[in-house]
């Protein structure tokens, strides 16, 4: 294994824990498909954070056991889940009303590109890949704080924190915070403010031109 392939910075679990530390007790939280679902599994139940999944459930608790699993109990990533006492089920119109109406405090989503204006792209690569926006466009315009949890670099090695998104947008001026394995960043409109770097990571490693960093 060459030195360049050694993983640098936070693990996914550590990224999840960094996000969990941002979320106060009593808050409501929606988790996107993929990496963000780790947060449900690592959340301290004593914290009273209620987790929403847009397919129609409030009170997600993490994985079920083989004894309790139910084919009709899944999250928006279509993974089987379990729920807390006090959970509720509802239809998709009410579920997205919770989002659009500003009743969800935090939303953690994956991203393909984020830029300094807080624009987000995460639903298609023209001509190559279309996953669809699912609930992401509603979430970024509805939840009170949007946190993007993504890898710092694309497979091609390009930094995914940009001066301006190139892919079709999911929403404009919607991102409050980005966390990658290298650090935590806040789009200011003209730059990324570096809130925190993972242990041992330097600014030079971020692959972001200095004038875009404050």
């Amino acid at each position, binding site marked *: 294994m060459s030195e360049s392939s050694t993983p640098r910075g936070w693990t996914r679990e550590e990224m999840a824990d960094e996000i969990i530390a941002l979320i106060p007790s009593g808050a409501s939280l929606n988790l996107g498909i993929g990496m963000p679902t780790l947060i449900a599994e690592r959340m301290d139940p004593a914290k009273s954070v209620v987790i929403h999944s847009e397919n129609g459930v409030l009170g997600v608790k993490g994985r079920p056991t*083989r004894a309790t699993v139910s084919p009709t109990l899944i999250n928006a990533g*279509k993974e089987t889940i379990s729920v807390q006492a006090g959970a509720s089920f509802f239809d998709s119109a009410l579920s997205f009303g919770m989002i659009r109406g500003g009743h969800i405090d935090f939303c953690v989503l994956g991203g393909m590109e984020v830029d300094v204006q807080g624009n987000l792209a995460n639903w298609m690569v023209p001509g190559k890949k279309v996953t669809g926006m699912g*609930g992401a466009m509603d979430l970024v315009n509805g939840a009170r704080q949007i946190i993007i949890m993504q890898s710092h670099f694309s497979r091609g090695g390009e930094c995914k924190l940009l001066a301006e998104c190139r892919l079709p947008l999911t929403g404009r001026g919607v991102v409050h915070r980005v966390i990658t394995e290298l650090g935590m960043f806040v789009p200011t409109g003209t730059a990324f403010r570096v809130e925190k770097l993972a242990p041992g990571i330097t600014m030079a490693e971020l692959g972001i031109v200095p004038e875009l960093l404050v």
Partner: protein
Amino acid sequence: MKDKTFSSSQEALHDLRDGISLMSGGFGLCGIPENSIDEIARQGIRDIHAISNNIGNSGRGLAILLKNGQISRATCSYVGGNPDLEQQMLAGQVEVTLVPQGTFSERIRAAGMGIRGFYTPTGYGTLVAEGKEAKEFDKPCILELPLHADFAIIKAERGDAFGNLWFKETARNFSPLMGMAAKVTIVEVEELVPLGAIPAEDIHLPGIFVQRIYQGSNYRNDIEIPVYAD
């Protein structure tokens, strides 16, 4: 109350035809109307405009009709996890309209509830806003229109002869909304129960929205991504 029961999927779906718009409930494979989909595959009707969040997943659900070449248009929010759809879309065999999931839900509700249009911030400043009226409220918004259908096929856990329905856990999702929005709503149930068996306060979709109901059978209830704590 009017008895809307049919003896089989074949009888309940007797008047489907080429070119219909068809809503189908379910999120991924959760809560999908398996028996009705199988019957439509058997009938072989074509040129369907399918309206469903995922148009099946992993080769199952509505993806059965995709594989049969029965679907020519699809309105949905998510293509990921459905290789049949992604492939037919990129090949130009199926014309896909992607709608943000919350707008998709609300447009279907609007069709059922007689709302002729609504303003939402979702999609403003993106491809979704192209060609739509915009208007400034506390945030800039776009005008979205109701989404109707000729038929809806949905599945409920329990239902009675009038069509009152109850859904289990997250299997509810889009199904009651689609039940309101279609001209003809055809329901299959895990369990057909007597009138009054579902407490009147806890009916998730009142039977007034339902035209036909039948007892389903042989449910697979596939789990797409089983994950366990143990």
